[in-house]
């Protein structure tokens, strides 16, 4: 029976219309649609979806609950393993995780696990269903650095165990990448992100913004002066990379982080916000990840004509499949196998073009991955008045530099065990700060593991 129902399509804003607004693209399932889609799940004995989930959400179990219309129970099942389902349902790369392994996908389309997760999370938020059993206070204090998914997840688990938790955030607003990076049209700030943060606060977690750890306070200060017993570092990977090609400092060249921060954190797109953003008419975005898609689609919504330049082929685009699909629907152009070699400017120092070379995929290397190689004498110019560099980010060294005994790996991440213990006693870490830029779900998972490790550590410490 299940096999005969086609995947229930999810309602979306029309591409032409949404290309001009910042409202969420995907409108989500109705109750009936969700139950219909849930009925497609075969409730496998050995569910491949669950194995492929980085935090092992009990997928078939929650989907069965949805099929029965017991959404509260579905929410309860998800909450055992995930603390940010409304967010993960929206931003996880499901096609390489749960949905990529779903048996239904072998012959047809996989179960829409992400959309169902999102449905359940939105439903439970709208109906005020919460699973906040907290233990009595144990008097121990933990400092969490960074309010991104790793920090929020770590803080809420610790608060539930009875710890007194304070999150210290460098920016003026909590949420990490969820707030400053991922745009409104993919992840609504007020309804989803702010609501998640509120529910963490309701557990008793304090959030102190405007504290740059390493400058305003050091980790030593936290132990010696502010009376914390353990510290979790979830400071992310915020340093933007540039290409080191000529012309990168021309006016009109910005990092995707700058562009997105001006727009998302500082709300430059809104009437009345005073932070400026310069969009130009023709925007080139360099890169192929989620960050590149977000920057491109933001520029489009601000009125520009946008081209994404990527040096491999569409198959290798690291962005979520859905984002690439949406970007194309909205009218973003893609130039594949194209590598920028220089940014060209006018006599006043403003960008006029991106000079590129054609690439082709070379022989597979040991890992089987085919690296792009330049085609000789294939240079050409792409006209542009703004170039957005979305080449990835790396962890900020500030905390490691100001904390004796906290070691970094050669790639710049903090050295930490699987459980999150760093090289400094009482200091734990997880998320992008350890792995380099990765995903929300991995950061959340790392935050929760570290919470368990911190609990162990503080219980055993006399």
């Amino acid at each position: 029976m299940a096999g005969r129902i086609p995947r229930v399509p999810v309602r979306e804003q029309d591409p032409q219309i949404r290309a001009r607004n910042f409202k969420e693209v995907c409108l989500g399932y109705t109750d009936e649609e969700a139950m219909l889609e849930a009925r497609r799940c075969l409730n496998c004995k050995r569910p491949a979806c669950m194995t492929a989930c980085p935090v092992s959400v009990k997928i078939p179990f929650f989907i069965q609950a949805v099929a029965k219309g017991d959404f509260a129970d579905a929410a309860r099942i998800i909450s055992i393993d995930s603390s940010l389902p409304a967010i993960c349902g929206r931003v996880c790369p499901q096609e390489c995780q749960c949905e990529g392994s779903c048996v239904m996908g072998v012959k047809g389309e996989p179960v829409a696990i992400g959309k169902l997760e999102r449905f359940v999370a939105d439903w439970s938020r709208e109906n005020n269903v919460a699973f906040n059993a907290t233990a009595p206070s144990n008097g121990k204090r933990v400092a969490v650095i960074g309010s991104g998914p790793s920090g929020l997840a770590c803080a809420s688990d610790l608060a539930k165990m009875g710890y007194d938790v304070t999150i210290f955030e460098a920016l003026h607003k909590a949420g990490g990448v969820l707030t400053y990076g991922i745009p409104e049209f993919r992840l609504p700030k007020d309804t989803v992100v702010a609501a998640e943060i509120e529910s963490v606060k309701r557990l008793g977690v304090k959030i102190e913004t405007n504290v740059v750890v390493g400058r305003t306070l050091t980790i030593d200060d936290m132990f010696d002066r502010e009376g914390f017993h353990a510290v979790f570092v979830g400071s992310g990977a915020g340093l933007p990379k540039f290409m080191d090609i000529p012309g990168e400092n021309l006016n009109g060249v910005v990092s995707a982080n700058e562009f997105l921060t001006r727009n998302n954190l500082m709300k430059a797109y809104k009437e009345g916000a005073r932070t400026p953003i310069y969009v130009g008419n023709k925007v080139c975005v360099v890169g192929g990840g989620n960050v590149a898609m977000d920057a491109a689609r933001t520029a489009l919504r601000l009125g520009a004509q946008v081209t994404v330049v990527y040096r491999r082929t569409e198959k290798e685009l690291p962005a979520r499949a859905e984002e690439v699909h949406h970007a194309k629907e909205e009218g973003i152009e893609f130039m594949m196998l194209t590598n920028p070699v220089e940014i060209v400017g006018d006599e006043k120092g403003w960008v006029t073009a991106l000079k590129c070379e054609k690439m082709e995929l070379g022989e597979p290397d040991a890992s089987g991955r085919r690296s792009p190689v330049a085609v000789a004498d294939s240079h050409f110019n792409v006209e542009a008045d703004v170039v957005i560099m979305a080449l990835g980010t790396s962890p900020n060294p500030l905390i490691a530099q100001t904390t004796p005994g906290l070691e970094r790996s050669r790639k710049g991440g903090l050295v930490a065990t699987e459980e999150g213990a760093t090289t400094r006693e009482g200091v734990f870490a997880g998320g992008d700060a350890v792995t380099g830029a990765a995903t929300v779900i991995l950061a959340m998972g790392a935050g929760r593991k570290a919470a368990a490790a911190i609990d162990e550590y503080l219980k055993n410490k006399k």
Partner: protein
Amino acid sequence: MYRIVRKEVLSPVITLMEVEAPRLARAAQPGQFLIVRADEEGERIPLTICDYNREKGTVTIVTQAIGASSKEICALQEGECFTDVVGPLGQPSEFVNLPDEELRKMSFVFIAGGLGTAPVYPQAKYFHEKGAKVDVILGAKSADLVILEKEMEAVCDNLYICTDDGSKGFKGLVTAKLEELMAQGKGYTQAVAIGPMIMMKFVTLTAGKFNLPLVVSLNTLMVDGTGMCGACRVTVGGKVRFACVEGPEFNAYEVDFDEAMRRQAMYRGKEMEEDHKCKIGRGR
């Protein structure tokens, strides 16, 4: 939070404020800056830390009303609060790491242009207290734009005021005064120039004639101030640097001032073309 405990109007367009920010005050060092937001819709505006009082838990900032955001800051009243104040940001002056006996052997000349007087003040005070020789050349367009004169006098050996129109002190540019002092054989061992980018560029040319070591503090555009956006990038010694984390102070002789000036005007120029209000970067 971040309450303005004292406000003083230094000139029709320049305002001094002492703001409650205890952790920031405890950690601040000469050379560092902070970022403020006047209200919920406000821009993040970097301002240099002009003074700090660790006991009282306050920092002092000086703002010149130029664009919409800085006017908004100046319009805040004593007793009101900033929505956000974060810092200290950037590296402290490299000389704070010198042992006191080294510092006592040094002879500083600070060249302050306009609002640059504010960030020069904590450095002059610090090095003067440590026993270094400290002279200050303070430049302004006219007498009414000379700020912190008394405060500065108290923390240096000689204060030379220069005005463009001669309405106070020496008539002429700070570079002319610097040439004159060097010609008199003042024997400075270190110069520090803080002010408008264009002034720092010309001070660099003048100091270069005398092989006088010079540090400048770059007031680039900034957004986060923590290394996350790259809005503050400058070319120093042929390399791209983020002024907010690696600066704001750099060796003047390595700075690409022309690029820095062009980048500083990035939003200004475009906005004016589009007939928008000017939004300034670092309020100096």
